[in-house]
């Protein structure tokens, strides 16, 4: 077990390192840099002309005069050694500060969505498998297909429209106006809780629909196996029979799916947050990309990627813990 954790940890570190390179390179791909974008804006707005020397000075100030490789190492070096994520050009603030404002909420919403996805999908999956082709099974399948087919942002738009049209409420944002800038209090917490259901519904729908299908499929396979038939022939209580083995086995793939469910949730969270104007990392990333705010965009992608890699790492460990067969196999090897 100790060796397994060590190996997975190493693998996680290599993945994080790879993500940091991908993030940095991708962010640098657009032609021009932050200074160019800024100068273009200034020229467009004021018509002022900038001397070449001034431009060069600005570039030196932001460290944009060096080639990409040294810049990458200076960026990643500071992150690893000092926890310094660089400065955001556009906000003129340390990137770490901006991330600290938004990352916790992203993590909270992603985690909560994941949890709710399981809480809803597992019972429905079990019900659908044990009542195959009942009207409820068909209903869940139908709703599930709709959920998979509707883009997150479109669902958010439709809900916003319904909320405005029929309930006369605006469901954008995570806090009402009076709480938006207020410090944390019980009132603000309660206000946030009231706004949460819509984003959770929007982000969680596709994942829940997918998971119900996986759960139903695996459980159906399990229920047709001979050990189930044998147990039933021996007169084992139907409920005990279901939960003792088939459900336990069907839950395993669910844990290993965290690896793809989590990236999907983080992706969905990003776009939903842009539409619903949630104070999470999604809108910030979009802004950073549009302004070529290199360090902010790179660090955000790094964080989101890191979040999913870490989630996958945890799910790997959980799988070993839950499934004695895997534990046994690994111990033998």
């Amino acid at each position, binding site marked *: 077990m100790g060796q397994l954790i060590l190996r997975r940890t190493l693998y996680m570190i290599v*993945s994080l390192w790879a993500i940091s390179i991908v993030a940095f390179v991708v962010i640098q791909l657009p032609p021009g840099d932050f200074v160019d974008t800024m100068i273009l804006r200034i020229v467009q707005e004021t018509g002022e002309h900038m001397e070449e020397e001034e431009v060069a000075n600005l570039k030196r100030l932001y460290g944009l005069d060096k080639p990409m490789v040294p810049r990458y190492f200076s960026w990643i070096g500071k992150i690893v050694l000092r926890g310094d994520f660089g400065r955001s050009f556009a906000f003129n603030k340390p990137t770490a500060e901006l991330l600290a404002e938004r990352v916790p909420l992203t993590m909270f919403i992603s985690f909560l969505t994941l949890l709710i996805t399981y809480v809803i999908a597992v019972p429905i999956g079990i019900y659908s498998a044990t009542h195959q082709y009942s009207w409820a099974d068909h209903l869940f399948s139908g709703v599930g297909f709709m959920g*998979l*087919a509707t883009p997150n942002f479109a669902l958010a738009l439709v809900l916003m429209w319904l909320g405005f049209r029929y309930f006369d409420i605006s469901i954008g944002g995570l806090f009402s106006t009076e709480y938006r800038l207020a410090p944390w209090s019980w009132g603000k917490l309660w206000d946030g809780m009231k706004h949460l259901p819509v984003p959770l519904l929007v982000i969680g729908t596709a994942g829940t629909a997918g998971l119900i299908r996986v759960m139903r499929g695996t459980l159906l396979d399990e229920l047709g196996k001979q050990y189930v038939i044998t147990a039933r022939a021996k007169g084992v209580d139907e409920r005990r029979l279901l939960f003792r083995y088939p459900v336990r086995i069907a839950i395993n793939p669910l844990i290993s799916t965290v690896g793809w469910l989590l990236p999907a949730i983080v992706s969905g969270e990003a776009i939903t947050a842009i539409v619903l104007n949630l104070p999470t990392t999604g809108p910030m990333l*979009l802004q950073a990309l*549009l302004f070529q705010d290199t360090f902010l965009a790179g660090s955000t992608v790094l964080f989101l990627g890191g979040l999913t890699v870490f989630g996958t790492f945890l799910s790997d460990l959980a799988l070993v813990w839950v499934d004695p067969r895997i534990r046994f196999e690994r111990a033998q090897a």
Partner: protein
Amino acid sequence: MSGPDPALPPAAAAEAAADERYYVASQWQLMWRKFRRHHMALAGGAVLLFLYLATGVAGFLSPYEKATRDADYLLAPPQRVRLVHDGRLIGPFVYSLERTRDPETLQRIYTENTGDPHRIRFLVRTDPYKLLGFIRTDLHLFGVHPPATLYLFGTDELGRDMFSRVLYAGRVSLSVGLLGVTISFLLGVVIGGISGYVGGAVDTVIQRIIEFLISIPTLPLWMGLTAALPPKWPALRVYFGITIILSILGWTGLARVVRGKLLELRGGDFVVAARVSGATAGTVIRRHLLPSFLSYLIVHLTLAVPNMILGETALSFIGLGLKAPVVSWGVLLTSAQNFRTVALSPWLLIPVLFVVVTVMTFMFLGDGLRDAADPYK
């Protein structure tokens, strides 16, 4: 064994004949038989075929050109097609729209003028367009003669007909999926094939890379990559750029399927038998391996298309994907970004319906194909 066996009763004979047909049918015939029983998949396939054909001849089916603007009717609501006017059946027609302004909010209010019916004409000559991209014509399947208007899905904030635009946009949205899947297919088959065929260290490295790519949240990465497309690029090049970006992350699943199937089949008895009887590697791959997993590839491709369509729609919606003057369903939805506009003009959300229907039909089709892919089960 030909003809009914006289020793059997008629019912059993019929059954035996059915069995006989089953045994001699080719793999593809069996698949088609099984697929035909999946009604949802058949319906899905039909709807998709219709969508592709309809958007293909979008110019002919839409009453207006995609960029035709009507400054008198900004954000006009959909006009209802009616049949009965003044108690008389006069064929399909619409009432003209009358515009007034709310004296307080200064909002435009459109009301139907029920005294002014306009018959919908068939095969009318109005806006010029190019059919299939090269036949210059101005013939439309249906429309009304100006100054009458025919806005079946309403108009957008610039007074352009949503119905026509949705049809034109479908062309781009639907083809992004197909083109992207083609690129993914090539990447997936080549990389997955190498992985499964060579094996060993190469296989391990490729599998690790795939696992890594799957673990990255796609949307932030897509956002980063599309932001990298130069804003000065012409529309067509941006379109190809976006498609390539979408397929860069799309090939991983396919590569896994190809590799898994190759590994599974490589040691199969029929492959060994072919090899022993002196078949070359090329023959083994072409005659024995490819047909065995081609059906799985098709299933996987069908299920990969919706992801591409959803990806393009989302990227265009937030302004990082395709941009006007190109129209796709995502581009059309950008005018629905402001939810006050949506609240007052919900018809701007109509493209969502098309996205949902397209994606669902692809999923049903894929489901049916998956069942049919293994007809011996």
